[in-house]
């Protein structure tokens, strides 16, 4: 009986610790939640610290920002199901549009902030192993036999949709709009894919940590970050043409109205366009949308890279591209199933 008492006492102490005091975070006067996508973790960690200072000097309040990261589509889904985000900073417009259609955001959010509500941009580049042993220089090389390609799944990952569309754009130019040739090329690339993760960070880990594949199709910022984390093991190959990715931001109207946080949420996103916000984006390898700040990073980014946008006639905007390529049974499904 003594032993059972000792065990019971142990369980009791264990239970008490669940309700015990937690090292107190500095008490915040106001708190907002930023639901974001995978590769922005490092950016927002630094940005939040800068914004807290900014808000303190503006209003004299201590602000706290709760972060959540994951695949862009999955994050949008969670917000629709009730994850209360004051602001969304996702990978592509259709994910925010999905939240709008669920009634949480008022239509017209994309003109609420400058430049299509995209404070920073990025593009898709290739991350290859040191010395580029397979000589992967442009999109055409991805279709060669024996090249192992790593990309996330376009169905779940925003970045992967940009990857796919960038390849499409290159092939469209290369084959002068011959759709059959374009599809054949894309089909060959898809067959070279070794691992199809659900999110961008998962793919990076597959390529960088687990050593799978010869080339990772990655966000430019994600590729630079991997380069910085693992110095000397990889290099970036910039293709002759890529796509201008504009990760958008939005205030979630339903949530800020309920919580009374509209002012701070709006300022949080506006501050991304300030010189300080733009420089932090640049330091974290996102292309600043302010051209003057972008010039400061001219040694980092290839600012002359030929970038096509989603509104180019070959795509005709997100809604059309999404419908044609990524819906169930769309072009991606047809080519991938072959």
């Amino acid at each position, binding site marked *: 009986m003594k*032993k*059972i008492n000792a*065990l019971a006492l*142990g*369980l009791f102490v*264990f*239970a008490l*610790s*669940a*309700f*015990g005091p*937690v*090292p107190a*975070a500095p008490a915040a006067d106001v708190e907002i*939640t930023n*639901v974001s996508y*995978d590769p922005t*973790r*490092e950016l927002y960690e630094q940005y939040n610290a800068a914004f807290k200072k900014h808000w303190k000097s503006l209003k004299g309040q201590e602000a706290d920002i*709760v*972060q*959540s*990261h*994951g695949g862009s589509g999955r994050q949008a889904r*969670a917000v*629709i*199901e*009730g*994850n*209360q985000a004051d602001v969304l900073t996702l990978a592509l417009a259709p994910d925010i549009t999905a939240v709008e259609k*669920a009634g949480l955001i008022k239509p017209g959010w994309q003109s609420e902030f400058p430049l299509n509500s995209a404070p920073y941009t990025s593009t898709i580049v290739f991350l290859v192993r040191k010395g580029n042993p397979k000589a992967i220089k442009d999109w055409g090389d991805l279709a060669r036999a024996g090249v192992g390609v790593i990309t996330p799944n376009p169905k779940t990952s925003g970045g992967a949709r940009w990857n796919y569309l960038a390849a499409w754009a290159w092939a469209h130019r290369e084959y002068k709009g011959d759709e059959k040739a374009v599809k054949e090329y894309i089909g060959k690339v898809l067959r070279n894919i070794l691992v199809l993760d659900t999110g961008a*960070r*998962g793919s990076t*880990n597959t390529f960088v940590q687990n050593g799978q594949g010869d080339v990772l199709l990655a966000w430019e910022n994600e590729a630079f*970050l991997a380069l910085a*984390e693992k110095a000397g093991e990889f290099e970036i190959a910039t293709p002759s043409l890529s796509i201008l990715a504009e990760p958008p931001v939005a205030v979630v109207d339903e949530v800020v109205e309920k919580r009374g946080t509209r002012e701070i949420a709006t300022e949080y996103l506006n501050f991304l366009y300030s010189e300080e916000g733009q420089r932090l984006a640049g330091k974290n390898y996102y292309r600043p949308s302010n051209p003057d700040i972008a010039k400061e990073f001219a040694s980092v980014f290839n600012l002359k890279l030929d970038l096509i946008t989603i509104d180019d006639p070959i795509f005709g905007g997100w809604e059309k591209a999404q419908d044609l390529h990524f819906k169930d049974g769309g072009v991606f499904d047809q080519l991938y199933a072959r």
Partner: protein
Amino acid sequence: MNSGKYAMNAETSKWIPRILILISFLFILLMLVTPLTVIMTEAFRAGLKSYWRAVSDPYALKALQLTLLAATTAVVLNTAFGLTAAWAITRFSFKGKGLITTLIDIPFAVSPIIAGLIFILTFGRLSWLHPFLSAHDLKVVFAAPGIVIVTLFVTFPFVAREIIPVLEARGTDEEQAAALMGAGLFAIFRRITFPHIRWALLYSVILCAARAIGEFGAVSVVSGHLRGKTNTLPLHVEILYNEYQFNAAFAVSSLLAFAAIGILTARNIVEFTAKKEEEGHVR
């Protein structure tokens, strides 16, 4: 044992057990010991200081606290429920008894991901309950209560499943005798039933705690991954891993590994003591 189908010649009977033992040991070494060693070496690779920084990080402590809260609630409520259900099922006959016994097993049969989705559909923004919850400012999913509820769900059968067979095997003779002698229901439970089941109960509580601490799938679905708010230890490990903080990820994993080792030790003590007590009774 030298006749019938177990008959074998002396030579085979010598090497067959040896091979079986060898296979078991190799398998356990490969599948259990090696990964555990990797976790520990990776956790301490960057030194004690950075280990301490990782496990005392405010987000890690918050995650630890939420994990303990969920595990404790699961253990307390499931113990209460498990005892009640086991007692009712083995001591009374009533309509729907078979149904209850089957329903208790649902969490074992359902994938944790589905379990998470069920609660999103029940308490989420698109559910029919949402207008009510929202009007009263109650947050269930994507908040701590959701984490606690799914943990409760996945660990639901542990206690009842463990106690029912013990009570069934014991029969009701002693309890009936006590009742005839005028003992009340509570006295019967405390003086007769409980002493029989206390080791099984403790054993099931330990298993329940182990599962509650380690649960990932269901919790991941309802969490929303809000840092410092809805991350449990297993979710925190995933986040650290995804942020290139490998040493920290392994350091926090080692906490889970230590918990597992502690739980296994407690389980063995319980088993050993129960066995000894049993032998004492027989003598």
